[in-house]
């Protein structure tokens, strides 16, 4: 039933993408290890280079492993940028590690004029089994009562809450375009981003992934959006990083037929600098 409602709502929203300069898209938590039943705060932060009234393109991370207890959002509009911050108070459903993210923004890339999906980083939260006598949260109490069935109801409630939240505040662009969307300028934390791109390039050595890895490398070296490879290479005297910059440039602009080999070469170069 829920699936039907979601599908109907999504299908009705065929909104066109907007051109957005996505400068940052990150998620973070105030605690990475939390006793089961206790709450933590998840912050989603997005910065776009336009003054916008709302950011409906932002798709919050999947939180099915958590229960959303509260949420708040804030939109700061500057003359040439808008910062969106959402803070969600969540609690893990089950003990053990759970990955949150990524969050997404689907928009038209201002450089290539192509629809692209910008992805945030991911964070891992480890839910610890509550110590005896510790004041528990909702699920701890449920566990204490050994009501597994009730826990499932809780999960379903969390999913419903998430769906309702997403539908109330976000419009998801036409899902059909998803397969063509590739990250161009992901705003992952620097070290994590490059390592993640190495894995992605090895898995799918495509030009799109090479372009994404190049953007992450540029960001890692502190390059501005108006800098070219020569500028970026000049930022470091380390030959390994300079080789990575050259490999990224080749992989992003090489002629058709050379994409895969260049992307793998880029993965090798990035792996060297990630060590």
């Amino acid at each position, binding site marked *: 039933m829920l699936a039907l409602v979601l599908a109907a709502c999504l299908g009705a929203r065929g909104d066109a993408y907007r051109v957005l300069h996505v400068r940052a898209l990150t998620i973070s938590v105030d605690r990475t290890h939390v006793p089961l039943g206790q709450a933590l705060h998840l912050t989603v932060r997005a910065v776009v280079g336009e003054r916008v009234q709302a950011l409906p393109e932002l798709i919050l991370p999947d939180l099915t492993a958590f229960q959303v207890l509260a949420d708040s959002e804030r939109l700061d509009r500057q003359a040439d940028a808008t910062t969106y911050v959402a803070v969600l108070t969540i609690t893990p459903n089950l003990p053990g590690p759970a990955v949150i993210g990524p969050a997404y923004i689907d928009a038209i890339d*201002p*450089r*290539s*004029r192509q629809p692209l999906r910008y992805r945030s980083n991911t964070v891992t939260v480890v839910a610890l089994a509550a110590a005896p006598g510790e004041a528990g949260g909702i699920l701890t109490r449920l566990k204490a009562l050994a009501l597994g069935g009730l826990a499932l109801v809780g999960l379903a409630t969390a999913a419903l809450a998430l769906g309702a939240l997403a539908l109330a505040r976000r419009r998801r662009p036409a899902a059909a375009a998803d397969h063509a969307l590739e990250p161009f300028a992901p705003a992952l934390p620097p070290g994590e981003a490059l390592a993640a791109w190495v894995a992605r390039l090895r898995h799918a050595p495509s030009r799109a992934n090479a372009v994404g890895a190049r953007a992450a490398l540029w960001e890692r070296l502190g390059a501005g*959006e*108006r*800098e*070219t*490879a*020569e500028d970026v290479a000049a930022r470091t005297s380390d030959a390994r990083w300079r080789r990575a910059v050259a490999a990224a*440039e*080749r992989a*992003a*602009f*090489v*002629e*058709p037929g*050379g994409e895969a080999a260049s992307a793998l070469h880029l993965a090798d170069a990035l792996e060297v600098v990630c060590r």
Partner: protein
Amino acid sequence: MNVEPLVVRSELAKAIVGQDEMVDGLLLALIAGGHALLEGTPGLAKTLACTSLACLIGGAFRRVQFTPDLLPSDVVGTRIYDQRAGEFRVELGPAFANLLLADEINRAPAKVQSALLEAMQERQVTIAGETHALPAPFVVLATQNPLDGEGTYPLPVAQLDRFLVKIRVAPPTREQELEIVARYGDHPPTLSAAAALDDVRAWQERARAVHVEPPLRAYAVDLVRATRSHPLIEAGASPRASLALVALARARSVLQGRSFATPDDVRAVAPAALRHRVAWSYRVAAEERDPERELRELVAAVSPP
């Protein structure tokens, strides 16, 4: 055996001290199959660079000193009556060369300039109703002196547009000048052909095959469009400038031994491709601004892919 353009470049450096921008600009024009306009005060090795390049590629080289009394037929050729044979025959002009040095092009009247520019564009000339194809490659290297205003006929922007690049020839540094004095004082360097015309044709073929990703083309177009909305530019560059940017970026890729172009290629060639294609507003002169600096800032303000 194929000779790489870098070989010619390093040979050219034996004759020309410094002047990297001029040397690269000439080679880029040659590889892209376009024409180059060199602007600089006398004595900066403009003519030497052109003659050296002609020598290094082993092509037919002709030089025309443009003067106010020059006629179109002095450049493209004419029909003359052969008294012995008793008939008219066509005498081809100096335009029929692989490298044509049009020295001080702004000293000739508009009629001669347009005859040459037509030949540059069409790569053929018509003499007495008969069309003659110019040899390939055909590259015009024109020079002009920016200081002499009297007795000159400045080329209008529409005609300047026919030149693929405009190269500014700057005075040498003190160290370079010392090197010039030392090098040409004792034993002036002698050059011999380092490549052949077939090599040049091969470079041009390779340049045409260089891969340019769509975002790079968009970058070139954005750069050109930026000249049309610049508050200090009265008339921006035409779409021919976009084509020139991409052609030059391809040529630079070949010069650097690549088979694909990068944003650095486009950015590096942008000043040479754009500087003669824009008409600056009177404010630039009134406010004593440097057009070259304004152009560099314009290029730097456009985000590359």
